[in-house]
């Protein structure tokens, strides 16, 4: 049962960028994207596959996205963060497909004139992403697999 055919989407406007992609995420790319002469602070968050969950050894995660809607929602998150915290620039990327232990499934990079804004917005954005963006992960562990559900 294949997922939707198009597994990549990229949306952007003046200061915001969002991407859903099956490719490995390169933190530097997004940090460079939010570079700004008016920025005194860049905060980033990377969500990474870890090796265990509730005592079971994780082999990999598989991410599936409602790609175009997810990309639009990620861009919306950037806009909301920019509006609430006066950011300079904002970028969020989420990966689809297999994400091995140690690899990043999501990267957020925000820049702002002062440190508080980028830091707070980054924390808010990952919480909000987990609550609102139509992406799913299936965990593969020794002897089984399960669709995960984020806690509200």
């Amino acid at each position, binding site marked *: 049962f294949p997922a939707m055919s198009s597994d990549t989407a990229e949306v952007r406007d003046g200061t915001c960028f969002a991407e859903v992609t099956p490719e490995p995420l390169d933190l530097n790319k997004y940090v460079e994207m939010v570079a700004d002469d008016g920025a005194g602070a860049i905060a980033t968050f990377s969500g990474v596959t870890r090796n265990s969950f509730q005592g079971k050894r994780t082999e990999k995660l598989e991410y599936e996205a*409602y790609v175009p*809607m997810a990309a639009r929602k990620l861009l919306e998150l950037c806009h909301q963060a920019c509006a609430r915290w006066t950011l300079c620039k904002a970028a969020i990327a989420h990966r689809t497909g297999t994400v091995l232990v140690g690899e990043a*499934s999501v990267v957020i990079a925000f820049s702002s004139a002062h440190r508080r804004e980028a830091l707070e917005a980054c924390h808010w954005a990952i919480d909000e992403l987990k609550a609102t963006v*139509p*992406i799913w992960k299936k965990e593969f562990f020794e002897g089984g697999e399960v*669709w995960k559900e984020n806690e509200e």
Partner: protein
Amino acid sequence: MDVRVLFFARSRELAGTSEATLALEAGSTTAALLPRLMEQYPWLAELGGSFVLSLNQEYLAPGEEQVLKAGDEVAVIPPISGG
């Protein structure tokens, strides 16, 4: 009229496909979606009611009613787990 229905994650696995077509009476609203979906795809009951719907890539709020048109894109959205 026909609308597209997209299935994701566990609903996609239950459907055995990621996409289907749902026939609705002309002038149907989003209120008709859930009963028609459950009728057409009875295995959706296995999700235990824990899914929401989107219309043209926006979540449908509970109780929200919009008139549908041919070609609209509806999606079955099980509990999300991105991040």
